Structures are given as structure tokens and as C-alpha cells.
């Protein structure tokens, strides 16, 4: 075989398909990737360090900015960990609101993933359709908590705002609307032969590798493992709802796509159930002391964010500020497998595989 000279290609930090400021040092031989090394940290803001000087309430807006596509789950991670340490009771209405917004946020996040993924692969329109539908979720959030991305909605002990009048009806309406839209997505994307060719059998890894790299979310489920923290270590009121955990078999990109699309369907089911059972009235804040002092100790809780297991590890020394706050950021864990997957792949597959992992750089870099 003829040996050709290898070339070092610097992909990012400003590149259309690195979803932010990820930089990849790629050694290529022609269009074949010999080696790829992710360089991260361009968006590191030191959230964990900053949190040591902030009260628990003040940390919540900071978590909005980690995984900025699903800030609600981030909010929940920190308040959930704090509540667990303080042993607080959360009113039912607040839990319902939390579940509704978290699942809506999961849908919004998966829609963005679907759109940007198709954009990476070269199709333009699904991106705008996905954003069009996500816009409705953002409008709902805007009405509920006054912001479209950085919600700062949850509080230790409950949520900040009650649902405005008519909001629940709008959510219900949206569920019906999106269920109809999903059919359109399947027509446009799922059956598309070019899309199948680009994704089937690409970026495959087995279950053992996935567990070793501690992948989570759709990245883990696509290998056939039924693992969803909403089911396997239930938090909030997820036990009340019936939903399935979509699982793939082949572990390739197409299955990942299907998994995420079915997760949208399942989330819609949860939202629909939560809207039906929504308590007519009730408090949205539990009994919480004015100054939050978390008892001494440590706690780690993981929740299922759209990207995987979002964990929050709090070490407290009994003050109103955490002694150490550590987030298990799913994108950070999921990105680690990238060099393994990219070896001996084509450059065109680089963006497809990277997009399939679904990273948010704000989360990778903390």
C-alpha cells in the first residue's frame, strides 16, 4: 500500500459542526482519520469554584448556564441534592410543575439535537422545523418563569412561580401539536435513504465499552441497556407516570437518532399524564427556612438529563454555602469516547459521530 503523508487538521474551536467551542486535533491521512484528540476548556467558567462562595439559591442561576439547552434539569439537580440533604418535603403541585417543565425541556433539547444533527449531516430544513417547534416550548417557559433559556425556575423546596392561568391548557395543546409534528419529522428524516446511509452502522460501540466510558442517556441505551434514572432510581414523582425507556440494539447513529426521537414521544406521554393529573390547587413552596443551612454531610444524586446522568455532589460543612460542589456533567463523560470512535473513520463521519454524542460545550467545560 502506498503511504501518504499525514496531515494535522485543526477542527475548531471555531468550526460550524463542533457545537460551540470544542477543538479537535485530527491527524488525517487523506480523508481517513488516524487519530483525534479533543481539546476542551474553552468555555470553562469555574462554576464549581464560584459555587463555593455562593449560597444555594445563588447557585441556581449558575446551573442554568451549564447545559444551556436543558436548564430546567440542571436547576433540578442542584435543588434536588440540596433538598435531599435537608430532608425537605416538596408539595405535590410543585413536583408536578417540575416534572412538566423538565420533560418539556427534554423535548426542547432533543429537538435542537435533531435539528443540529441533520444540519451537520447537511440537511437544512429539519433544523428550522425543529427550532420552530422548540420555540413553542420556549414561549411556554417564558410565560411561566420569564426567561427563554436561563430559567432560574426551581427553588430549594419548590418552584418559584405557579402556573399562570391557562398555562396547563397550553401545554396540553402543545402536546397534541407536537405529536402531529413528530409524524412529519419521521416522514422528512427517518425514512430518508441518504440519512440512513449516513448513519446506519456508523459509530458503533458495544455495551461493555459504553459502561467502561460511563456513558449515559441515549448514548448508553443505544447499546441495548435499559438504563434510565427516572426508572432505575426514581426521583421526584416519576413513579406516578407510565412511560417506556427506548432502547436501541445496534449501537449505531441511526439507533441513537431513533432512541432520541422515541424519547420525545415518551416525554410527551409523561407531560400528557402530568397535565391530566395536575392538582387543582396546592402550595408550590414547601416549608423552607429563610436562610438555607444544609446540615453537615455529603450527598450525590444523579438525575436523567436529556444528555444522560446529571449528577450533583454536594459536600457541606453546615454553612449556607456548599463546601464543595461537583457536577457530574454527562457531556463531559460522553465526549471521552470520541477518540476511540473516530479512529479510522472518514472525515465526513467525524461530524456525524460527534453530533451523535450530543454534547453541550457549556456542560463539557463546566
Amino acid at each position: 500500500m502506498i503511504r501518504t503523508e499525514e496531515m494535522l487538521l485543526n477542527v475548531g474551536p471555531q468550526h460550524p459542526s463542533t457545537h460551540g467551542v470544542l477543538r479537535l486535533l485530527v491527524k488525517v491521512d487523506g480523508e481517513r482519520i488516524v487519530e483525534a484528540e479533543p481539546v476542551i476548556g474553552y468555555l470553562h467558567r469555574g462554576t464549581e469554584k464560584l459555587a463555593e462562595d455562593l449560597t444555594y439559591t445563588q447557585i441556581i442561576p449558575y446551573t442554568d448556564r451549564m447545559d444551556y439547552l436543558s436548564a430546567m434539569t440542571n436547576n433540578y439537580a442542584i435543588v434536588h441534592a440540596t433538598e435531599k440533604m435537608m430532608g425537605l418535603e416538596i408539595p405535590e403541585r410543585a413536583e408536578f410543575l417540575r416534572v412538566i417543565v423538565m420533560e418539556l425541556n427534554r423535548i426542547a433539547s432533543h429537538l435542537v439535537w435533531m435539528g443540529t444533527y441533520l444540519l451537520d449531516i447537511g440537511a437544512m430544513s429539519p433544523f428550522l422545523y425543529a427550532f420552530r417547534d422548540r420555540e413553542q416550548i420556549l414561549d411556554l417557559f417564558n410565560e411561566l418563569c420569564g426567561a427563554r433559556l436561563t430559567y432560574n425556575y426551581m427553588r430549594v423546596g419548590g418552584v418559584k412561580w405557579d402556573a399562570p392561568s391557562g398555562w396547563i391548557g397550553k401545554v396540553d395543546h402543545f402536546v397534541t401539536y407536537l405529536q402531529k409534528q413528530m409524524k412529519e419529522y419521521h416522514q422528512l428524516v427517518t425514512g430518508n435513504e441518504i440519512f440512513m446511509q449516513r448513519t446506519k452502522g456508523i459509530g458503533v460501540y458495544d455495551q461493555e465499552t459504553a459502561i467502561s466510558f460511563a456513558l449515559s442517556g441515549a448514548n448508553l441505551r443505544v447499546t441495548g441497556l435499559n438504563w434510565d434514572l427516572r426508572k432505575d432510581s426514581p426521583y421526584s414523582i416519576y413513579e406516578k407516570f407510565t412511560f417506556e425507556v427506548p432502547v436501541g440494539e445496534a449501537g449505531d447513529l441511526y439507533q441513537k437518532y431513533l432512541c432520541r426521537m422515541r424519547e420525545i414521544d415518551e416525554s410527551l406521554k409523561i407531560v400528557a399524564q402530568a397535565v391530566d393529573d395536575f392538582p387543582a390547587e396546592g402550595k408550590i413552596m414547601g416549608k423552607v427556612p429563610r436562610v438555607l443551612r444544609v446540615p453537615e454531610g455529603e450527598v450525590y444524586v444523579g438525575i436523567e438529563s436529556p444528555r444522560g446522568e446529571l449528577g450533583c455532589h454536594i459536600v457541606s460543612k453546615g454553612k449556607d454555602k456548599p463546601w464543595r460542589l461537583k457536577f457530574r456533567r454527562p457531556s463531559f463523560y460522553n465526549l471521552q469516547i470520541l477518540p476511540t470512535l473516530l479512529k479510522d473513520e472518514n472525515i465526513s463521519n467525524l461530524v456525524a459521530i460527534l453530533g451523535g454524542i450530543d454534547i453541550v460545550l457549556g456542560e463539557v467545560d463546566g
Partner: protein
Amino acid sequence: MLGLMKGLNVTLKNMVKPKVTYNYPKEPLKMPDRFRGIQYFDPDKCIVCNQCVRVCPTDCISLTGKKNPDPEQKGKVIDTYDINFEICILCDLCTEVCPTEAVVMTNNFELSTYSRDELFKNREWLFANDENIRSENTLNPLPAKKPKGGSPS
């Protein structure tokens, strides 16, 4: 081929659907009431309790009080009140703790300027920003004066 045809059909159908874009900035965007925009500050209501400064996660608020000029009254009145919108993240915590609704959110969000210095807003500017004020604000009302407040439960 069939999948591609279906896709072409979807895009063609979407071509005649109504468009979803806004004609912004020609038509201003109407934000819902709870929208967290630039704060309005009412110096008369402020009791210089310093809660907003303490709760601010980015330390963007600075205020000074002075003795009440009216010798009859006790307590302090506000002297200067500045919010640095270079670092303010509009997180709503200051309005949440303010017991007198002296600092409240408005629905205005347009802050772009040609100079960073202009993002440093003082008491007069914040007082002049009196349009589209949000109706519900504090979660921390003064117990006696405001029995219902904005508590949303």
C-alpha cells in the same frame, strides 16, 4: 427513493404554510408579564435593607444609603443605586427578595449600546425605566404593609 420523495413532499407542504418569523425590530416583541427584563427602581420605596445586594449572584448591584433628611423619620433613604448590566444576568433574585418592591422587573430587554460604560445604569436611569413593569414581583413581602404581595401560592 420513496423516503426522499416523502421528504420532498413534506418540504413542499411546508412552503405554503404560514410563516413563523417575527418582524422584529420593526414590530416590538410582546413579552409575557413574567418576563425578566431590565429592572425598574423606585427610590421612594427603597428602605436600604441591602438584601438585593447580598442575594445578587454576580455582585452587580451596588447601593449607598444616607440618613433620612426628614428628622421625624427613622432609618435611611437611598442615595445611590447602580446596576452593572455588563454582569447582571437578570436572574430575578433581587426582585424576589426586595420586601417593598422597590426594585422590580420590567418587560424591556433592549440593552445594546456602543460602549460598555453605558451599561452601568444608575438610580436615575433605572427610575426612568418605568414602562411595562411586571405585576408580580416579590416573594418576600413586608409582613404588615403588604398582606398579599406577589406570593404566587
